[in-house]
């Protein structure tokens, strides 16, 4: 079925790979949402440059979707930031910024777009394995836990029309993980049973599974994609 899928945080990293994967996987028009003016996405993707934490941001995305005249089949809430610090040093500003982008924007956009979703549509929220707890990430962990809670509640309230699931990536090879000092990164990888970082493509494949009818009986779940890190 032809339709539209919205992906947030689509300009780079995991979001960019998700958007490209979805664009090549079906007869979809992918709307790539990001704050960055240089989306640099393929021509198959409709770019929308908005600040999703603003009052008008989610509404602008809805207007773009409505303008395409296709049914809305999916939403991937991927946009996220980190502002890490130990709890004792975490500032009000960094706490607020992470909560607004990672959780508030996802909630507001989903609320805005849910009325447009038709039978068989799916929402995928990109959480993080950090929702299980991660040193120095009180704000990030709280925001991703909140996203998991939102996933469960919306899976109930939007059923049976819309399925809602979450993906919780572990350590993934992106610009964000490259910023981790090499010795620490190596230590982190050594704790992963599959002995490597994941790739953005592996997250995109999981998102595709959860968006597509392949997972038509799955809703309200959190799929941890972390190479087995939760076991060690």
């Amino acid at each position, binding site marked *: 079925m032809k339709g539209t899928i919205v992906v947030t945080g689509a300009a780079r990293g995991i979001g960019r790979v998700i958007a490209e994967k979805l664009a090549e996987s079906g007869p979809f028009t992918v709307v790539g949402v990001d704050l960055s003016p240089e989306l640099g996405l393929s021509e198959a993707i409709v770019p929308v440059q908005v600040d999703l934490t603003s009052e008008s941001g989610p509404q602008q995305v809805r207007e773009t979707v409505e303008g395409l005249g296709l049914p809305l089949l999916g939403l991937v809430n991927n946009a996220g930031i980190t502002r890490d610090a130990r709890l004792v040093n975490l500032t009000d500003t960094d706490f607020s910024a992470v909560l607004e982008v990672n959780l508030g924007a996802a909630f507001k956009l989903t609320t805005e777009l849910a009325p447009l979703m038709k039978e068989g549509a799916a929402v995928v929220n990109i959480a993080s394995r950090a929702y299980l707890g991660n040193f120095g990430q009180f704000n990030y962990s709280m925001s991703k836990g909140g996203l998991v809670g*939102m996933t469960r509640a919306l899976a109930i309230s939007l059923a049976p029309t819309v399925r809602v699931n979450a993906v919780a990536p572990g350590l993934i090879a992106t610009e964000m993980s490259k910023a981790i000092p090499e010795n620490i990164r190596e230590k982190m990888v050594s704790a992963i049973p599959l002995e490597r970082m994941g790739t953005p493509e592996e997250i995109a494949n999981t998102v595709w599974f959860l968006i597509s009818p392949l997972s038509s009986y799955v809703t309200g779940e959190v799929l941890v994609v972390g190479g087995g890190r939760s076991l060690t």
Partner: protein
Amino acid sequence: MIPPPRIPAAVEVTPSDDLAGFLFWMDEIGPGWQDVKSELTEAFTGARESAKSETSMVFIVKNDDLLGRNGPTRAMAAAGLVSAARTAALEGVSKGWTANVVAYDVIVSPAEVLGRAKFVLQNGITTGEIIHLGPGHIGKALI
């Protein structure tokens, strides 16, 4: 300075209740994003002060909120507190303080909830856990 315990007015606290640490009982919040944000912000500021004082913290939530049965905003706040407690617990290990969540069913009396929260706040060993009171979570999604 650690804020006073955040406890519903209906819950009786006696002077003999030793609530040393930070106790945050989640409110019945509204349907908007600002409701979630102000609840989580209050929990954060209290938790930060508690961590600075190297004292333990407990967040109290409803099982139904955790499971998403009372709408998205309550689920976001409750599940956010669980994740925050786990991260705080990791940071408290080297300092000797703990962070936990008490998740209760509506059939459990407020006094029983407070009693268990006090126990967890004081025992100094349990950390990073969800202590469920009542059977509502059995056979349901784990968070």
